[in-house]
Structures are given as C-alpha cells and as structure tokens.
C-alpha cells in the first residue's frame, strides 16, 4: 500500500467540520495536496501529532479529530499511547502510517517496527479501546470509517510501502511554514467554534 492512495481514501471520509493533525514527514505534503483547507494543523515536531491531537480532542469533545502519525513519531513518544488510553476521548482517531523506516533520513534506516515492535498491540495494551492493523486498502477504508463513527477512541496502524508521492501539482504544493500553518488553523477554529483565541488586545 502507498500512503498517498490511503490518504485519498481518507479525504473522502473527512469533512470540513473535522480537524486533522499531521506528523512531520511525507504525510504533510501529501495530505496538504489533497486537503489544502485550514482544518489541518501540520505539526513540526516528531512525537507531537498524537499528544497534540489528544489536547485538541479533549478540548473540543463535540468535534471529530484525526491524527496522522508515523511509526517514527509514535516510537519517539510511546508514553502518549498510555495517556490516550487513559483519557480515551471518543472523538479521536489516530492513524499511524508505518513504513518501518525513518524515510526522511539518508538511506532510510529501519525503525523498530521493522522488527518485533507492534504498535497496534502496544496501543491495545495501553488501553485504547479500538485498534486495528490495515494491510490492504479495503481494510484501511473499513477501519477508518468505523473508527471515525463508532464513538470510541481508535488507533489504526497502516502498513505502507516506503516512498513519497512525487507528482503533486505545483498549485497543490505546500509552501507555508509553521507560523502560517498555526495562524490558518487557529483562525479556522475561531470561525468554526465562534470563539476568540488570539485577540488583538487580551482583556483578561
């Protein structure tokens, strides 16, 4: 399975009322090319996507939240699985794209999931109620649809081939930096929730 093919399927399930948090890596430009709206926070920190999305999901319990994490990101911060398991917000779905390597590093050295480490079993043991591993596109679509609608915290590991989609058209290429990403997401939340997060003057 290629990640881009899975993201195309996921984009059909995500609405403009949902919020998405991505990890660093190839998932960022690929997801942006498919969903260039402001409903995604493109995180810039390894190990951040899952705990960041947990904060989003707990603070906005009425809104569906999807985290697009990676094997490298998850391994960087495994304790977050236990925190997600303890809190278990029903509106959170975590998808871990597992290519079993640090693809952004020269030579793509292997991560521990290329050996015996099994992130789905870890997630289940951490108390996350709904877990799955997808090895086909059909499995992926079915599990994603279920997890995004079953009112339980879900974590799916999607076993993917290495590789980043190279044919993103220039008009769909992500050019923004972390500051612009932050403002776009923040202002989107302000409009969506009809709240003020960062006013010009902080009254109290």
């Amino acid at each position, binding site marked *: 399975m290629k990640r881009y093919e899975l993201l195309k399927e996921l984009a059909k399930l995500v609405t403009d009322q949902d*919020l998405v*948090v991505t990890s660093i890596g190839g998932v960022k430009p690929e997801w942006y090319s498919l969903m260039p709206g402001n409903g995604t*926070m493109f*995180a*810039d*920190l390894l*190990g*951040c996507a899952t*705990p*960041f*999305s*947990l*904060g*989003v*999901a*707990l*603070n*906005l319990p009425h809104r569906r939240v999807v985290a697009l994490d990676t094997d490298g990101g998850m391994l960087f*911060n495994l*304790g*977050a699985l*236990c*925190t997600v398991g*303890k*809190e278990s917000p029903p509106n959170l779905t975590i998808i871990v794209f597992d290519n079993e390597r640090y693809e952004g590093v020269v030579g793509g050295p292997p991560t521990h999931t290329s050996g015996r480490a099994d992130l789905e079993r870890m997630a289940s043991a951490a108390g996350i109620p709904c877990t799955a591993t997808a090895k086909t596109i059909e499995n992926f679509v079915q599990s994603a649809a279920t997890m995004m609608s079953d009112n339980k915290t879900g974590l799916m590991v999607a076993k993917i081939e290495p590789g980043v989609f190279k044919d993103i058209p220039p008009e769909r290429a992500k050019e923004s*930096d*972390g*500051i612009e*990403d*932050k403002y776009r*997401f*923040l202002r989107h*939340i*302000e409009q969506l*929730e009809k*709240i003020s*997060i*960062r*006013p010009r003057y*902080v009254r*109290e």
Partner: protein
Amino acid sequence: MEPRLAALVIEGLKRARVRFVVGLPDSMLAGVYVAAGKDPDIKYVAVTNEAEGASVAAGAWITGGRSVLVMENSGLRAACEALSRLGLVNGIPVTMLMGYRGDLGERFHWGVNHGMTMEPILKALRIPYWIIDHEEQIIPALSRAVIHGISSLYHTAVIFRTPLVDEGK
C-alpha cells in the same frame, strides 16, 4: 505546596480563564495536581513526560482552551525540543508552572542540578518567567503569564520558590 496555597493557584488559574491543566506530578507542587484533579471545572490530564505534556497543552490552547503545564523544573530539560519547536517554529504558547528545585539551600543532592540549569534554559529559549515566593504574587503571576502567552504567542513560566513550596524531607 500546602492545600491553602494550592487552592490559591487553582483560583488564579480560573481567574486567568484556564480550564485545562496538564501535569506530570512532582513533590513541590503536589497539592496543585491533587486540587486540579478534583476540581469539577478543570480538565486535568496526567501525562508521562513533559515533552508530551507540552504537546497536549498546545493542542488544547490552539483550539481555544487556555492551558498550563505543571511540572518539576527538571521537566524543562525533558521538554526542550517540544518547547523549541512549538514556540520557535509554530508560535504556540505553553505556560508552565514549576517548583524551584535546586534553589539556594537545596537539601537533596539530586536536586541541585535542576536549579543550575533551569534559568539558563529559560533564558536560552527566551522564555519570560517570574520567580515568586509570596502568596500575594500567585494570582497576579498566573494571570500575567497566561495573558503574556496569548499576546506574545510564546511560552511563559511561573516558578514557585520556598516558602510557597515544600522542599521535602
């Protein structure tokens, strides 16, 4: 921290409209974790390390939930990379509350190094901080730290020094 002072911290957080508290328990601010966990108006999230805590707090903050991260000051070292990226790359603030372990007079040998590194790290990360040691400072310090986080879009910290915190035995 004795319950009366911990209650003041909670009151200060509420006055600053903070309803989301993330924490990794330590002895100095022990009363705060307990009070936050029991308060029905506060969502308290216990995390497994301070870097994770910074990310959880940031996720809540950017969706409109004013948040703080409560931790030992050694957690600053554990959270350095997360704070650097969230602050310097994204401009998403995390307001931190921590006890001054390793302050002059520290009785535990293992705590001395926390004090040696805390302020240099705060300065290296350009994080404004306020070291307080009188209870009258608690509420205004929390309010100013939270407000400054919003206006600057950068991290802030309030450091609680003895006699506000228990040094332990």
